[in-house]
Protein backbone atom coordinates (compact mmCIF):
# COMPACT_ATOMS: atom_id res chain seq x y z
CA UNK A 1 0.00 0.00 0.00
CA UNK A 2 2.87 2.38 0.77
CA UNK A 3 4.41 1.64 -2.61
CA UNK A 4 1.19 2.39 -4.45
CA UNK A 5 0.75 5.75 -2.74
CA UNK A 6 4.39 6.76 -3.12
CA UNK A 7 4.33 5.84 -6.82
CA UNK A 8 1.17 7.83 -7.53
CA UNK A 9 2.02 10.85 -5.36
CA UNK A 10 5.79 10.84 -5.76
CA UNK A 11 6.15 14.39 -4.41
CA UNK A 12 5.13 13.34 -0.86
CA UNK A 13 7.61 12.78 1.94
CA UNK A 14 7.56 9.38 3.77
CA UNK A 15 6.03 11.09 6.82
CA UNK A 16 3.15 12.45 4.78
CA UNK A 17 2.54 9.01 3.29
CA UNK A 18 2.47 7.56 6.81
CA UNK A 19 -0.16 10.10 7.78
CA UNK A 20 -2.23 9.30 4.69
CA UNK A 21 -2.08 5.56 5.39
CA UNK A 22 -3.14 6.13 9.01
CA UNK A 23 -6.04 8.25 7.79
CA UNK A 24 -7.16 5.52 5.39
CA UNK A 25 -6.96 2.94 8.17
CA UNK A 26 -8.95 5.19 10.51
CA UNK A 27 -11.67 5.62 7.88
CA UNK A 28 -11.82 1.86 7.27
CA UNK A 29 -12.15 1.11 11.00
CA UNK A 30 -14.68 3.92 11.51
CA UNK A 31 -16.95 2.82 8.66
CA UNK A 32 -16.62 -0.79 9.76
CA UNK A 33 -17.60 0.15 13.31
CA UNK A 34 -20.64 2.17 12.29
CA UNK A 35 -21.85 -0.67 10.06
CA UNK A 36 -21.17 -3.14 12.88
CA UNK A 37 -23.27 -1.08 15.27
CA UNK A 38 -26.12 -0.78 12.78
CA UNK A 39 -26.31 -4.51 12.25
CA UNK A 40 -25.52 -5.26 15.89
CA UNK A 41 -28.72 -3.50 16.91
CA UNK A 42 -30.64 -5.59 14.39
CA UNK A 43 -28.81 -8.73 15.59
CA UNK A 44 -29.66 -7.98 19.22
CA UNK A 45 -33.32 -7.33 18.52
CA UNK A 46 -33.63 -10.45 16.39
CA UNK A 47 -31.82 -12.74 18.86
CA UNK A 48 -33.78 -11.34 21.79
CA UNK A 49 -36.98 -11.84 19.83
CA UNK A 50 -36.26 -15.48 19.06
CA UNK A 51 -35.29 -16.09 22.67
CA UNK A 52 -38.63 -14.59 23.71
CA UNK A 53 -40.52 -16.60 21.03
CA UNK A 54 -41.28 -13.47 19.04
CA UNK A 55 -40.46 -12.60 15.44
CA UNK A 56 -38.64 -9.31 15.95
CA UNK A 57 -38.18 -6.60 13.30
CA UNK A 58 -39.35 -7.95 9.91
CA UNK A 59 -41.04 -5.04 8.13
CA UNK A 60 -38.28 -2.78 6.76
CA UNK A 61 -36.35 -4.47 3.96
CA UNK A 62 -35.80 -8.22 3.59
CA UNK A 63 -36.09 -9.92 7.02
CA UNK A 64 -36.18 -6.44 8.56
CA UNK A 65 -32.49 -5.91 7.78
CA UNK A 66 -32.95 -2.20 7.14
CA UNK A 67 -34.78 -1.59 10.42
CA UNK A 68 -31.72 -0.06 12.13
CA UNK A 69 -31.09 2.26 9.19
CA UNK A 70 -34.69 3.43 9.38
CA UNK A 71 -34.30 4.01 13.13
CA UNK A 72 -31.09 5.96 12.59
CA UNK A 73 -32.77 8.19 10.02
CA UNK A 74 -35.64 8.77 12.43
CA UNK A 75 -33.21 9.75 15.22
CA UNK A 76 -31.32 12.07 12.85
CA UNK A 77 -34.48 13.93 11.90
CA UNK A 78 -35.86 14.24 15.43
CA UNK A 79 -35.78 17.54 17.27
CA UNK A 80 -33.02 17.89 19.85
CA UNK A 81 -34.54 19.21 23.05
CA UNK A 82 -32.22 20.86 25.56
CA UNK A 83 -33.89 21.17 28.97
CA UNK A 84 -34.31 24.83 30.01
CA UNK A 85 -32.65 24.46 33.43
CA UNK A 86 -29.84 22.26 32.19
CA UNK A 87 -26.18 23.21 31.88
CA UNK A 88 -26.13 23.60 28.10
CA UNK A 89 -22.38 23.36 27.49
CA UNK A 90 -21.85 20.19 29.48
CA UNK A 91 -25.16 18.78 28.26
CA UNK A 92 -23.85 18.90 24.69
CA UNK A 93 -20.29 17.92 25.63
CA UNK A 94 -21.22 14.76 27.56
CA UNK A 95 -22.24 12.51 24.61
CA UNK A 96 -19.04 13.48 22.79
CA UNK A 97 -16.96 12.62 25.88
CA UNK A 98 -18.53 9.16 25.82
CA UNK A 99 -18.14 8.57 22.08
CA UNK A 100 -14.58 9.82 21.58
CA UNK A 101 -12.82 7.37 23.97
CA UNK A 102 -15.00 4.53 22.66
CA UNK A 103 -13.71 5.21 19.15
CA UNK A 104 -10.14 6.14 20.12
CA UNK A 105 -9.64 2.83 21.92
CA UNK A 106 -9.81 1.05 18.54
CA UNK A 107 -6.51 2.68 17.54
CA UNK A 108 -4.47 -0.02 19.27
CA UNK A 109 -6.70 -3.00 18.43
CA UNK A 110 -5.00 -5.20 15.81
CA UNK A 111 -7.34 -6.86 13.31
CA UNK A 112 -4.63 -9.08 11.86
CA UNK A 113 -0.83 -9.16 12.28
CA UNK A 114 -0.39 -6.19 9.94
CA UNK A 115 -3.52 -4.10 10.27
CA UNK A 116 -3.27 -1.81 13.28
CA UNK A 117 -3.63 1.95 13.35
CA UNK A 118 -1.09 2.69 16.08
CA UNK A 119 1.18 -0.10 17.31
CA UNK A 120 2.22 1.56 20.57
CA UNK A 121 4.26 -0.15 23.29
CA UNK A 122 1.82 0.40 26.13
CA UNK A 123 -1.27 -0.81 24.25
CA UNK A 124 -3.02 -2.50 27.15
CA UNK A 125 -2.50 0.49 29.43
CA UNK A 126 -3.83 2.78 26.73
CA UNK A 127 -6.97 0.65 26.49
CA UNK A 128 -7.43 0.68 30.25
CA UNK A 129 -6.99 4.46 30.37
CA UNK A 130 -9.50 5.05 27.61
CA UNK A 131 -12.16 2.67 28.89
CA UNK A 132 -11.95 4.40 32.25
CA UNK A 133 -12.32 7.76 30.54
CA UNK A 134 -15.80 6.94 29.26
CA UNK A 135 -17.32 7.36 32.71
CA UNK A 136 -17.08 11.16 32.43
CA UNK A 137 -19.62 11.20 29.62
CA UNK A 138 -22.06 9.35 31.85
CA UNK A 139 -21.42 11.44 34.98
CA UNK A 140 -21.56 14.79 33.20
CA UNK A 141 -24.66 13.81 31.21
CA UNK A 142 -26.46 13.00 34.44
CA UNK A 143 -25.36 16.18 36.18
CA UNK A 144 -25.90 18.55 33.27
CA UNK A 145 -29.44 17.29 32.64
CA UNK A 146 -30.48 18.75 36.01
CA UNK A 147 -32.91 15.90 36.55
CA UNK A 148 -33.16 13.64 39.58
CA UNK A 149 -33.45 10.44 37.56
CA UNK A 150 -30.49 11.31 35.36
CA UNK A 151 -28.42 12.30 38.40
CA UNK A 152 -29.19 9.05 40.23
CA UNK A 153 -28.24 7.11 37.12
CA UNK A 154 -24.92 8.85 36.74
CA UNK A 155 -24.07 8.40 40.44
CA UNK A 156 -24.73 4.69 40.11
CA UNK A 157 -22.66 4.51 36.93
CA UNK A 158 -19.70 6.29 38.51
CA UNK A 159 -19.52 3.95 41.52
CA UNK A 160 -20.05 0.89 39.33
CA UNK A 161 -17.43 1.78 36.75
CA UNK A 162 -14.77 2.62 39.35
CA UNK A 163 -15.41 -0.68 41.12
CA UNK A 164 -15.26 -2.87 38.04
CA UNK A 165 -12.29 -1.08 36.52
CA UNK A 166 -10.11 -2.49 39.29
CA UNK A 167 -11.12 -6.08 38.56
CA UNK A 168 -10.60 -5.39 34.86
CA UNK A 169 -7.14 -3.94 35.48
CA UNK A 170 -6.09 -6.95 37.53
CA UNK A 171 -7.34 -9.32 34.82
CA UNK A 172 -5.22 -7.39 32.31
CA UNK A 173 -2.20 -7.74 34.63
CA UNK A 174 -2.62 -11.50 34.36
CA UNK A 175 -2.79 -11.27 30.56
CA UNK A 176 0.31 -9.12 30.28
CA UNK A 177 2.21 -11.51 32.56
CA UNK A 178 1.25 -14.43 30.36
CA UNK A 179 1.81 -12.60 27.09
CA UNK A 180 5.00 -10.92 28.22
CA UNK A 181 4.08 -7.66 26.54
CA UNK A 182 1.66 -4.76 26.59
CA UNK A 183 1.26 -4.96 22.81
CA UNK A 184 -1.87 -6.77 21.73
CA UNK A 185 -0.16 -8.20 18.64
CA UNK A 186 2.54 -9.82 20.76
CA UNK A 187 -0.11 -11.20 23.12
CA UNK A 188 -1.82 -12.95 20.20
CA UNK A 189 1.53 -14.28 18.96
CA UNK A 190 2.19 -15.74 22.42
CA UNK A 191 -1.02 -17.79 22.05
CA UNK A 192 -0.15 -19.28 18.66
CA UNK A 193 -0.13 -23.03 18.16
CA UNK A 194 -3.57 -24.44 18.75
CA UNK A 195 -6.58 -24.01 20.97
CA UNK A 196 -4.78 -25.39 24.04
CA UNK A 197 -2.20 -22.62 23.93
CA UNK A 198 -4.81 -19.90 24.22
CA UNK A 199 -4.88 -18.05 27.51
CA UNK A 200 -8.45 -19.00 28.38
CA UNK A 201 -7.28 -22.30 29.87
CA UNK A 202 -4.47 -21.14 32.20
CA UNK A 203 -6.23 -17.83 32.89
CA UNK A 204 -9.78 -19.14 33.03
CA UNK A 205 -10.87 -17.15 36.14
CA UNK A 206 -9.38 -13.97 34.71
CA UNK A 207 -11.19 -14.62 31.43
CA UNK A 208 -14.53 -14.86 33.21
CA UNK A 209 -13.78 -11.87 35.44
CA UNK A 210 -12.68 -9.77 32.46
CA UNK A 211 -15.83 -10.50 30.53
CA UNK A 212 -18.11 -9.86 33.52
CA UNK A 213 -16.42 -6.57 34.34
CA UNK A 214 -16.54 -5.73 30.63
CA UNK A 215 -20.31 -6.11 30.74
CA UNK A 216 -20.41 -3.93 33.85
CA UNK A 217 -18.17 -1.30 32.22
CA UNK A 218 -20.45 -1.03 29.21
CA UNK A 219 -23.49 -0.75 31.51
CA UNK A 220 -25.19 -3.65 29.83
CA UNK A 221 -27.69 -6.06 31.25
CA UNK A 222 -27.61 -7.49 33.97
CA UNK A 223 -25.51 -4.57 35.27
CA UNK A 224 -27.45 -1.73 33.63
CA UNK A 225 -28.36 -0.05 36.91
CA UNK A 226 -27.40 3.33 35.53
CA UNK A 227 -30.26 2.96 33.06
CA UNK A 228 -32.65 0.87 35.11
CA UNK A 229 -35.84 1.44 33.12
CA UNK A 230 -38.03 0.11 35.89
CA UNK A 231 -36.51 2.29 38.63
CA UNK A 232 -35.10 5.50 37.19
CA UNK A 233 -36.79 5.63 33.75
CA UNK A 234 -33.69 5.60 31.53
CA UNK A 235 -31.00 6.81 33.88
CA UNK A 236 -28.36 9.24 32.74
CA UNK A 237 -29.68 9.80 29.22
CA UNK A 238 -33.34 10.33 30.11
CA UNK A 239 -33.27 13.98 29.00
CA UNK A 240 -31.54 13.34 25.68
CA UNK A 241 -33.47 13.16 22.44
CA UNK A 242 -32.63 12.69 18.78
CA UNK A 243 -28.93 12.59 17.97
CA UNK A 244 -27.89 13.07 21.61
CA UNK A 245 -29.54 9.78 22.48
CA UNK A 246 -28.20 8.19 19.28
CA UNK A 247 -24.63 9.04 20.27
CA UNK A 248 -25.06 7.40 23.68
CA UNK A 249 -26.50 4.38 21.92
CA UNK A 250 -23.63 4.30 19.42
CA UNK A 251 -20.99 4.56 22.15
CA UNK A 252 -22.60 1.72 24.12
CA UNK A 253 -22.59 -0.64 21.14
CA UNK A 254 -19.06 0.34 20.08
CA UNK A 255 -17.91 -0.42 23.62
CA UNK A 256 -19.68 -3.78 23.47
CA UNK A 257 -17.83 -4.63 20.28
CA UNK A 258 -14.57 -3.43 21.84
CA UNK A 259 -14.95 -5.62 24.92
CA UNK A 260 -15.85 -8.59 22.72
CA UNK A 261 -12.88 -8.17 20.38
CA UNK A 262 -10.50 -7.61 23.31
CA UNK A 263 -11.72 -10.74 25.06
CA UNK A 264 -11.14 -12.74 21.88
CA UNK A 265 -7.70 -11.18 21.36
CA UNK A 266 -6.49 -11.63 24.92
CA UNK A 267 -8.03 -14.96 25.86
CA UNK A 268 -9.13 -16.76 22.69
CA UNK A 269 -6.07 -16.34 20.51
CA UNK A 270 -7.23 -13.45 18.33
CA UNK A 271 -6.87 -14.33 14.66
CA UNK A 272 -5.48 -17.81 15.38
CA UNK A 273 -7.59 -20.58 13.93
CA UNK A 274 -9.62 -22.92 16.14
CA UNK A 275 -8.21 -25.83 14.14
CA UNK A 276 -4.59 -24.68 14.08
CA UNK A 277 -2.31 -27.55 15.03
CA UNK A 278 -4.82 -30.14 13.78
CA UNK A 279 -3.17 -32.57 11.40
CA UNK A 280 -6.54 -33.83 10.13
CA UNK A 281 -6.94 -31.10 7.50
CA UNK A 282 -3.36 -31.19 6.32
CA UNK A 283 -2.84 -31.32 2.53
CA UNK A 284 -6.57 -31.33 1.89
CA UNK A 285 -8.58 -28.47 0.47
CA UNK A 286 -9.71 -27.69 4.04
CA UNK A 287 -6.18 -26.64 4.96
CA UNK A 288 -7.21 -22.98 4.86
CA UNK A 289 -9.25 -23.60 8.02
CA UNK A 290 -6.07 -24.02 10.05
CA UNK A 291 -4.57 -20.73 8.87
CA UNK A 292 -4.84 -17.60 11.00
CA UNK A 293 -7.19 -15.07 9.49
CA UNK A 294 -9.26 -12.04 10.39
CA UNK A 295 -12.43 -14.12 10.00
CA UNK A 296 -11.57 -16.17 13.06
CA UNK A 297 -11.20 -12.96 15.05
CA UNK A 298 -14.54 -11.67 13.78
CA UNK A 299 -16.18 -15.03 14.49
CA UNK A 300 -14.95 -15.02 18.08
CA UNK A 301 -16.04 -11.41 18.48
CA UNK A 302 -19.47 -12.27 17.16
CA UNK A 303 -19.70 -15.10 19.67
CA UNK A 304 -19.04 -12.72 22.57
CA UNK A 305 -21.54 -10.23 21.17
CA UNK A 306 -24.03 -13.07 21.13
CA UNK A 307 -23.19 -13.76 24.78
CA UNK A 308 -23.94 -10.11 25.59
CA UNK A 309 -27.41 -10.50 24.09
CA UNK A 310 -27.88 -13.94 25.60
CA UNK A 311 -27.17 -12.62 29.10
CA UNK A 312 -29.59 -9.78 28.52
CA UNK A 313 -32.33 -12.24 27.65
CA UNK A 314 -31.55 -14.58 30.54
CA UNK A 315 -30.83 -12.65 33.71
CA UNK A 316 -32.79 -10.22 35.86
CA UNK A 317 -31.09 -6.96 36.79
CA UNK A 318 -28.78 -6.99 39.81
CA UNK A 319 -29.73 -5.09 42.93
CA UNK A 320 -27.30 -2.27 43.73
CA UNK A 321 -25.75 -3.81 46.86
CA UNK A 322 -25.41 -7.16 45.08
CA UNK A 323 -23.59 -5.41 42.26
CA UNK A 324 -21.13 -3.80 44.67
CA UNK A 325 -20.64 -7.10 46.55
CA UNK A 326 -19.90 -8.91 43.31
CA UNK A 327 -17.41 -6.28 42.20
CA UNK A 328 -15.47 -5.70 45.38
CA UNK A 329 -15.82 -8.93 47.32
CA UNK A 330 -15.90 -11.56 44.58
CA UNK A 331 -14.21 -10.45 41.37
CA UNK A 332 -11.26 -8.50 42.82
CA UNK A 333 -10.21 -11.26 45.29
CA UNK A 334 -10.48 -13.87 42.49
CA UNK A 335 -8.16 -11.86 40.25
CA UNK A 336 -5.62 -11.22 43.02
CA UNK A 337 -5.54 -14.91 43.99
CA UNK A 338 -5.22 -15.99 40.37
CA UNK A 339 -2.31 -13.63 39.75
CA UNK A 340 -0.58 -15.34 42.69
CA UNK A 341 -1.40 -18.76 41.19
CA UNK A 342 -0.05 -17.54 37.87
CA UNK A 343 3.23 -16.53 39.51
CA UNK A 344 3.55 -20.05 40.93
CA UNK A 345 2.76 -21.54 37.51
CA UNK A 346 5.39 -19.28 35.99
CA UNK A 347 8.07 -20.43 38.39
CA UNK A 348 7.15 -24.12 38.02
CA UNK A 349 6.87 -23.63 34.23
CA UNK A 350 3.38 -25.07 34.02
CA UNK A 351 1.32 -23.71 31.18
CA UNK A 352 1.83 -22.74 27.56
CA UNK A 353 4.29 -19.94 28.25
CA UNK A 354 7.89 -20.37 29.36
CA UNK A 355 10.32 -18.15 31.19
CA UNK A 356 12.27 -16.17 28.65
Amino acid at each position, binding site marked *: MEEIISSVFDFLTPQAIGVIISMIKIVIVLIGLILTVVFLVYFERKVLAYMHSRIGPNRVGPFGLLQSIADTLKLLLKEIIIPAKS*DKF*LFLLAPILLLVPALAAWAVVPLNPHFIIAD*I*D*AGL*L*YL*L*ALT*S*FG*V*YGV*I*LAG*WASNSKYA*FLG*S*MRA*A*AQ*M*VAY*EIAMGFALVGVLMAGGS*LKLGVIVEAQSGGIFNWFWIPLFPLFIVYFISGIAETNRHPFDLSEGEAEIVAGFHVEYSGMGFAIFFLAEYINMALISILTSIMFLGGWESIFSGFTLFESTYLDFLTQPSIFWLLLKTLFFLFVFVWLRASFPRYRY*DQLMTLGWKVLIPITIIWIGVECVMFVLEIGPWSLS
Partner: protein
Amino acid sequence: MIKELIFYSFSSVLICSSLAVVLFRNPVYSAVSLILSFITSGFLWLLLEAEFLAIVLILVYVGAVMVLFLFVIMMLNINKETEKSSFNSVAPFAVFIGLIIVAELITIIWINSSQFSTSSTVIQQSSQMGNTLLLGTELFTNYILDFEIAGFILLLAIIVAISLTLRPRKNLKTQVASEQINVDPKKRMKLVDLKETK
Protein backbone atom coordinates in the same frame (compact mmCIF):
# COMPACT_ATOMS: atom_id res chain seq x y z
CA MET B 1 8.89 22.75 13.49
CA ILE B 2 5.67 20.74 13.72
CA LYS B 3 6.78 19.35 17.08
CA GLU B 4 7.31 22.85 18.48
CA LEU B 5 3.93 23.92 17.17
CA ILE B 6 2.27 20.95 18.89
CA PHE B 7 4.21 21.63 22.08
CA TYR B 8 3.22 25.29 22.25
CA SER B 9 -0.42 24.63 21.45
CA PHE B 10 -0.65 21.95 24.15
CA SER B 11 1.20 24.16 26.63
CA SER B 12 -1.17 27.05 26.05
CA VAL B 13 -4.15 24.71 26.50
CA LEU B 14 -2.54 23.45 29.71
CA ILE B 15 -1.98 26.97 31.08
CA CYS B 16 -5.48 28.11 30.16
CA SER B 17 -7.15 25.05 31.67
CA SER B 18 -5.07 25.31 34.86
CA LEU B 19 -6.13 28.94 35.21
CA ALA B 20 -9.71 27.93 34.54
CA VAL B 21 -9.56 25.48 37.47
CA VAL B 22 -9.12 28.43 39.85
CA LEU B 23 -11.18 31.01 38.02
CA PHE B 24 -14.42 29.10 37.34
CA ARG B 25 -17.17 29.82 39.84
CA ASN B 26 -18.86 26.50 39.26
CA PRO B 27 -16.89 23.68 40.98
CA VAL B 28 -18.00 21.13 38.37
CA TYR B 29 -16.46 23.27 35.64
CA SER B 30 -13.29 23.56 37.74
CA ALA B 31 -13.10 19.78 38.00
CA VAL B 32 -13.65 19.37 34.25
CA SER B 33 -10.86 21.86 33.49
CA LEU B 34 -8.61 20.01 35.93
CA ILE B 35 -9.29 16.84 33.92
CA LEU B 36 -8.40 18.72 30.74
CA SER B 37 -5.15 19.96 32.27
CA PHE B 38 -4.22 16.41 33.37
CA ILE B 39 -4.82 15.13 29.85
CA THR B 40 -2.79 17.90 28.23
CA SER B 41 0.11 17.37 30.61
CA GLY B 42 -0.10 13.69 29.66
CA PHE B 43 0.22 14.76 26.02
CA LEU B 44 3.27 16.86 26.87
CA TRP B 45 4.89 13.77 28.37
CA LEU B 46 4.01 11.87 25.21
CA LEU B 47 5.95 14.50 23.26
CA LEU B 48 8.95 13.69 25.48
CA GLU B 49 8.52 10.01 24.46
CA ALA B 50 7.54 9.04 28.00
CA GLU B 51 4.43 7.17 26.90
CA PHE B 52 4.24 4.94 29.98
CA LEU B 53 4.19 7.89 32.40
CA ALA B 54 1.76 9.78 30.20
CA ILE B 55 -0.74 6.92 30.07
CA VAL B 56 -0.36 6.19 33.77
CA LEU B 57 -1.00 9.86 34.56
CA ILE B 58 -4.22 9.75 32.57
CA LEU B 59 -5.17 6.32 33.93
CA VAL B 60 -4.66 7.20 37.59
CA TYR B 61 -5.64 10.86 37.79
CA VAL B 62 -8.26 11.09 35.07
CA GLY B 63 -9.57 7.54 35.31
CA ALA B 64 -9.80 7.18 39.07
CA VAL B 65 -9.01 10.26 41.17
CA MET B 66 -11.04 12.80 39.24
CA VAL B 67 -14.07 10.49 39.03
CA LEU B 68 -14.22 10.50 42.83
CA PHE B 69 -13.61 14.27 42.90
CA LEU B 70 -16.46 14.91 40.53
CA PHE B 71 -18.62 12.45 42.44
CA VAL B 72 -18.07 14.30 45.73
CA ILE B 73 -18.52 17.76 44.19
CA MET B 74 -21.81 16.75 42.62
CA MET B 75 -23.08 15.07 45.77
CA LEU B 76 -22.22 18.04 47.99
CA ASN B 77 -23.81 20.60 45.65
CA ILE B 78 -21.54 23.39 46.92
CA ASN B 79 -23.05 26.85 47.19
CA LYS B 80 -21.37 29.19 44.71
CA GLU B 81 -21.64 32.35 46.84
CA THR B 82 -19.89 30.96 49.92
CA GLU B 83 -17.24 29.57 47.63
CA LYS B 84 -16.52 33.06 46.31
CA SER B 85 -16.17 34.74 49.71
CA SER B 86 -13.86 32.02 51.02
CA PHE B 87 -11.66 32.45 47.96
CA ASN B 88 -10.90 36.08 48.88
CA SER B 89 -9.89 35.22 52.44
CA VAL B 90 -7.40 32.52 51.45
CA ALA B 91 -6.04 34.37 48.42
CA PRO B 92 -2.92 35.87 50.15
CA PHE B 93 -1.98 32.47 51.52
CA ALA B 94 -2.44 30.88 48.07
CA VAL B 95 -0.24 33.55 46.48
CA PHE B 96 2.44 32.84 49.11
CA ILE B 97 2.37 29.08 48.34
CA GLY B 98 2.47 29.87 44.63
CA LEU B 99 5.57 32.03 45.06
CA ILE B 100 7.33 29.21 46.94
CA ILE B 101 6.56 26.78 44.09
CA VAL B 102 7.81 29.29 41.50
CA ALA B 103 11.04 29.72 43.49
CA GLU B 104 11.51 25.95 43.66
CA LEU B 105 10.94 25.60 39.92
CA ILE B 106 13.45 28.35 39.21
CA THR B 107 16.13 26.65 41.31
CA ILE B 108 15.53 23.34 39.55
CA ILE B 109 15.20 24.54 35.97
CA TRP B 110 17.66 27.44 35.79
CA ILE B 111 20.31 26.69 38.38
CA ASN B 112 20.50 22.89 38.22
CA SER B 113 19.56 22.42 34.58
CA SER B 114 23.03 21.13 33.72
CA GLN B 115 22.26 17.89 35.59
CA PHE B 116 19.27 17.10 33.43
CA SER B 117 20.92 17.00 30.06
CA THR B 118 19.18 14.89 27.44
CA SER B 119 22.37 12.93 26.82
CA SER B 120 21.92 10.87 29.99
CA THR B 121 22.14 7.12 29.48
CA VAL B 122 18.63 6.35 30.71
CA ILE B 123 17.03 8.56 28.08
CA GLN B 124 19.19 7.08 25.36
CA GLN B 125 18.28 3.55 26.40
CA SER B 126 14.63 4.51 26.61
CA SER B 127 14.48 5.33 22.92
CA GLN B 128 15.99 1.96 22.06
CA MET B 129 14.14 -0.57 24.19
CA GLY B 130 10.88 1.21 24.94
CA ASN B 131 9.77 3.22 27.88
CA THR B 132 7.70 0.61 29.71
CA LEU B 133 10.33 -2.12 29.60
CA LEU B 134 13.11 0.20 30.72
CA LEU B 135 11.08 1.60 33.60
CA GLY B 136 10.18 -1.93 34.70
CA THR B 137 13.75 -3.20 34.63
CA GLU B 138 15.05 -0.11 36.46
CA LEU B 139 12.36 -0.25 39.15
CA PHE B 140 12.63 -3.98 39.79
CA THR B 141 16.44 -4.23 39.78
CA ASN B 142 18.22 -1.05 40.85
CA TYR B 143 15.40 0.50 42.89
CA ILE B 144 13.62 -2.61 44.18
CA LEU B 145 13.93 -1.64 47.84
CA ASP B 146 12.60 1.89 47.36
CA PHE B 147 9.82 0.53 45.19
CA GLU B 148 8.78 -2.05 47.78
CA ILE B 149 8.89 0.52 50.59
CA ALA B 150 6.67 2.84 48.57
CA GLY B 151 4.31 -0.05 47.97
CA PHE B 152 4.12 -0.89 51.66
CA ILE B 153 3.44 2.73 52.57
CA LEU B 154 0.59 2.83 50.08
CA LEU B 155 -0.80 -0.46 51.41
CA LEU B 156 -0.62 0.96 54.92
CA ALA B 157 -2.46 4.07 53.76
CA ILE B 158 -5.21 1.92 52.23
CA ILE B 159 -5.65 -0.09 55.43
CA VAL B 160 -5.66 3.05 57.59
CA ALA B 161 -8.17 4.79 55.36
CA ILE B 162 -10.49 1.80 55.47
CA SER B 163 -10.19 1.36 59.23
CA LEU B 164 -10.86 5.09 59.77
CA THR B 165 -14.04 5.08 57.74
CA LEU B 166 -15.31 1.63 58.65
CA ARG B 167 -17.89 1.98 61.40
CA PRO B 168 -19.63 -1.28 62.17
CA ARG B 169 -23.28 -0.46 62.66
CA LYS B 170 -25.41 -2.42 65.05
CA ASN B 171 -28.78 -3.84 63.98
CA LEU B 172 -27.68 -3.74 60.38
CA LYS B 173 -29.65 -6.24 58.35
CA THR B 174 -27.54 -7.99 55.77
CA GLN B 175 -28.21 -10.72 53.31
CA VAL B 176 -26.34 -14.00 53.67
CA ALA B 177 -26.56 -15.73 50.33
CA SER B 178 -25.45 -19.15 51.55
CA GLU B 179 -28.16 -19.23 54.23
CA GLN B 180 -30.77 -18.22 51.70
CA ILE B 181 -29.75 -20.96 49.33
CA ASN B 182 -29.66 -23.61 52.04
CA VAL B 183 -33.13 -22.90 53.32
CA ASP B 184 -35.22 -26.01 53.78
CA PRO B 185 -38.72 -25.34 52.47
CA LYS B 186 -40.19 -27.85 54.92
CA LYS B 187 -39.10 -25.71 57.89
CA ARG B 188 -40.58 -22.56 56.42
CA MET B 189 -43.89 -23.73 55.14
CA LYS B 190 -46.39 -26.27 56.31
CA LEU B 191 -49.03 -27.62 53.99
CA VAL B 192 -52.24 -28.30 55.84
CA ASP B 193 -55.17 -30.22 54.51
CA LEU B 194 -58.28 -28.24 55.18
CA LYS B 195 -61.65 -29.86 55.22
CA GLU B 196 -64.27 -28.34 53.11
CA THR B 197 -66.43 -26.01 55.12
CA LYS B 198 -69.91 -25.22 54.07
